[in-house]
């Protein structure tokens, strides 16, 4: 191999959502709508009874909307606007996945934030001498927050926990820096 391989495209695609699920869901809804309208048209052409309303009646109802009661079109209008707005926002947002990239000598590495959090939780629990069940870690793009509930009667050394977490984060070698903070609950739990 001559030039080192550029992982830019691969990494961009791994770190962002493809929006496939939403696009497919939207397509299915549109397909169902089209299929319904098509069925009504065919039924009316065959002079059969309509499922809900014949297409001619739909057009007539639409034309009479100006004299129809206000409540129904208002409600439908508001709901459609909210759905439309959410779709537009979803289309424009970057859609970052909850992942971090790790420095690697061979290839490119991405890890779910959940994996990073559970590794941090294990080390924080050991440093604090509390049960892993009483350790909750949440990892976001720039922050890792460790929440500990100490065992009643046993003090937790905040610095020891902070050091352990800091050490682990440094060892993971994430490509974007993540700050850590330790929150120790003010009241402990008995027998935890």
């Amino acid at each position, binding site marked *: *191999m001559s030039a080192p391989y550029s*992982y830019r*495209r*691969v990494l961009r*695609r*791994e770190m*962002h959502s*493809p*929006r*496939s699920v939403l*696009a*497919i869901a*939207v*397509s*299915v809804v*549109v*397909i169902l709508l*089209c*299929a319904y*309208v*098509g069925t009504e*048209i065919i039924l*009316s*052409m065959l002079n059969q009874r309509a499922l809900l309303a014949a*297409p001619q009646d739909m057009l*007539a109802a*639409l*034309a*009479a*909307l*100006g*004299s129809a009661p*206000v409540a129904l079109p*208002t409600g*439908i*209008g*508001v*709901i*459609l*606007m909210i759905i*439309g707005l959410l*779709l537009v926002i*979803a*289309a*424009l947002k970057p859609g970052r996945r909850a992942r971090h990239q*790790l420095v*690697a*000598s*061979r*290839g*490119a*590495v*991405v890890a*779910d934030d*959940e*994996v*990073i959090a*559970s*590794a941090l939780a294990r080390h924080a629990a050991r440093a604090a001498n509390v049960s892993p069940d009483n350790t909750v870690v949440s990892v976001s793009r720039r922050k890792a927050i460790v929440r500990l509930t100490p065992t009643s009667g046993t003090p937790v050394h905040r610095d020891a926990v902070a050091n352990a977490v800091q050490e682990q984060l440094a060892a*993971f070698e994430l490509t974007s820096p993540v700050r850590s903070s330790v929150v120790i609950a003010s009241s402990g739990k008995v027998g935890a």
Partner: protein
Amino acid sequence: MNNTNRALNRILIAVIGLLTLLVGAAALAVATLPAIRAAYKSTAPDIHNGMAGWLKAIPLFDTGSSWGWIFVLAGLVLIITLLLVFIFRQGHGRENILLKEPATQAGTTIIDSTVAEHAIQDDLDGRPEFIGSSVSTHRVHGTPVLKISVTCRRGVSPRDVTTIIENTLTAFDVLLGRQVPALIEIRGGMRARLARTTRTQ
């Protein structure tokens, strides 16, 4: 890593979203704004009559129906077909050939992707750190790229996982005599949460 057309996904969502937004806004305006309501009241029936007249003007033989509906049906079928093509176009981009050596007098050497996939998978499967793993080969801009995706047990350091897989990859590089680009994906998820705990070291 697959070659889903992500721009198209977003464009479709944006277009449908804007249409929904516009229809909703129109319905709301007709219902609540007196000026628009009055204008709609005066013009909509005329447009409706115009359309009804147009439908009558092109009768479908003597069935009492109209060619207009056939056109609408054709349009609907076209939309449905395009959307179905769009849905089935998602994903894809797997590659079957890992390496193809230029032909020599002795012949051509082709190495199948499954060689790499099985070799790497086999090495990773016995590891206690992992609950599951999958190896696949994708074509990215014409180059085969290996994707090694592992679900690891809770609490396992992603750095340790990286080291394990990098070692496997390096061993495979020696075997192959080449370096194939590789992406390592370390996942948590439901399976990791439900799996039994075990001793890893």
